[in-house]
């Protein structure tokens, strides 16, 4: 691997990301499965870095998952998105940041389609007016939330309490990065680093002290496949694609996986559990899995937040071996507690995958 070759490509794909004043829209999947990640995104951007990130309770799903499950027409998803843009316009913002990659891809695809077919944009404006009596300006900048953390990565590094270094060996941690397909595969110029060698997560990992691993199936989809997951009968597709990735990364013994799409960490986390239970195979050390983190979770960890306050207990693959390597202290008894130490009992243990 020739690192300079990648640097050359990265230099070609630098996108402009404004520093401040963002209209924020949430992710359906992230809110469900990694709610702590979204909390931490706002905590870091607003609380720590004092950025203006605005959220309105009136925004909704962008409809992206329903759209990619082919259950709603293109006009419907476009008008839902147009309504989100109207909310942004009404709030006085022009920078739009999405927590979800499906959403991000959806927004970019819609804006590009309107550019190519202006008559369609006109029709959507009419439909939005008819349905909601709203009007909108198109955002000046559309970013994914990982673009912002990428932009702030060095500020975060400067305040970090931990580095991505194995404290037992002194070596940088080996990190696999996984980019959501809809981040840059459709429009490579819209993603930091492009479609083939995206830099958005590599930049964070490098800045926080880790080593990025490139493995043969790096670019392969996590296997979500929308209808291939939401319908139970199809989940073999989803599982098989994740399995293919894990088989490919196994020889590199990664310490953890970093993701920017809300779906990928769920699938790469849970399919490890299923592979363990059905095939008896685990990919981490000593029967554990390989922890899969979101970038918000990782940023929070290096900044020194309590792992259980940022929601790492909601991962099926135990993160404790990773915390030990980085040297983050945690109280195992706290892991599954509610507010004010409330006892919530604990999840059952899987049969094969080691979790404690």
């Amino acid at each position, binding site marked *: 691997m020739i690192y300079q070759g990648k640097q050359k490509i990265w230099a070609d794909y630098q996108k402009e990301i404004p520093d401040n004043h963002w209209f924020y829209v949430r992710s359906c999947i992230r809110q469900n499965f990694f709610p702590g990640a979204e*909390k931490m995104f706002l905590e870091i951007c607003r609380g720590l870095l004092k950025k203006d990130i605005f959220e309105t*309770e009136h925004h909704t799903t962008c409809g992206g998952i329903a759209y990619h*499950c082919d259950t709603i*027409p293109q006009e419907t998803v476009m008008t839902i998105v147009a309504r989100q843009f109207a909310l942004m316009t009404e709030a006085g913002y022009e920078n739009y940041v999405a927590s979800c990659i499906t959403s991000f891809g959806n927004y970019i695809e819609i804006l590009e389609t309107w550019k190519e077919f202006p008559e369609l944009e006109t029709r959507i404006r009419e439909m*939005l007016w008819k*349905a909601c009596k709203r009007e909108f300006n198109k955002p000046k900048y559309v970013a994914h939330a990982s673009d912002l953390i990428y932009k702030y990565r060095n500020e975060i590094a400067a305040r970090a309490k931990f580095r991505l270094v194995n404290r037992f060996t002194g070596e940088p941690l080996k990190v696999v990065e996984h980019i959501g397909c809809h981040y840059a595969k*459709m429009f490579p110029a819209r993603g930091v680093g492009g479609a083939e060698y995206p830099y958005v997560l590599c930049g964070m990992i490098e800045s926080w002290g880790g080593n990025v691993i490139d493995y043969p199936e790096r670019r392969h989809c996590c296997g979500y496949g929308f209808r291939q997951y939401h319908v139970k009968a199809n989940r073999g597709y989803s599982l098989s694609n994740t399995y293919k990735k894990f088989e490919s990364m196994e020889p590199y013994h990664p310490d953890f996986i970093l993701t920017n799409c809300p779906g990928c960490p769920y699938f790469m986390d849970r399919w490890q559990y299923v592979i363990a239970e059905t095939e008896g195979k685990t990919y981490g050390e000593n029967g554990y899995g390989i922890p899969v983190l979101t970038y918000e979770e990782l940023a929070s960890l290096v900044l020194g937040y309590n792992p259980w306050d*940022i929601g790492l207990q909601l991962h099926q693959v135990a993160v404790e071996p990773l915390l030990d390597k980085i040297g983050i202290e945690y109280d195992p008894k706290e892991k599954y507690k509610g507010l004010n130490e409330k006892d919530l009992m604990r999840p*059952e243990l899987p049969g094969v995958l080691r979790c404690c």
Partner: protein
Amino acid sequence: MKLYDELLKDYRAKEGLKTCINCGTCTAICPAAEFYKYDPRKVMDIVQSRDEEEIEKLLKSDFIWYCGECMSCVTRCPRKNGPGLVIMALRSLSARLGYFTCSEKGRQLYPLTRLLTGNILNYGYCVYPDTFKWEDHKESGPVWKWHLEHIDDSMARLGANFKGNGPGILRKIPQESLDELKSIFDVTGGTERIETVNRFSEAKAEEMGMDMEEYFRETFEHTSEGHLNNED
């Protein structure tokens, strides 16, 4: 009505179908081509052949429902086609014409529509804890089961505003916003699409001798032999 002309009214077909040279860069990296009897190149070739009979067969087949819409094919096509976009247009047409009930994978449009449009119109989210049952998602693991059992406390610990007013994680989306979504569905053909899918699915369920609950279970859970490569 020519199916090809109908298809080309869809912006995704306009965008995704230029001229295919059958090079196979799409199939080479397609997640579906590896695990199903599927080849996106062939989809492109059939559509660009404008053979009405073949296109109708395609619209009624399982073939168009194997794609996962990851759009990895879009990155690679040397002719700037988007096989994934063409698939979306084909699926839309298959839904509109009711052809989707002719294939097992097509019939899954019924549970998908019920789940996803239901979540959007009832809650304002595509995925929602109340409808993401562990029993239907055992892969979500014991940790999700535990989380659902203690959802109010678990969410509170993580600073969510679960079912609460105002902004925040999994907040209750205000009724007036849900009303707007409903209105968008009515104006843009979303409601009509749901009704179409329901109508054709009900007819198919009757043909199969099932009530809609049985039909939901059947289409949601059952898979026959023959979709995968090692099966006849």
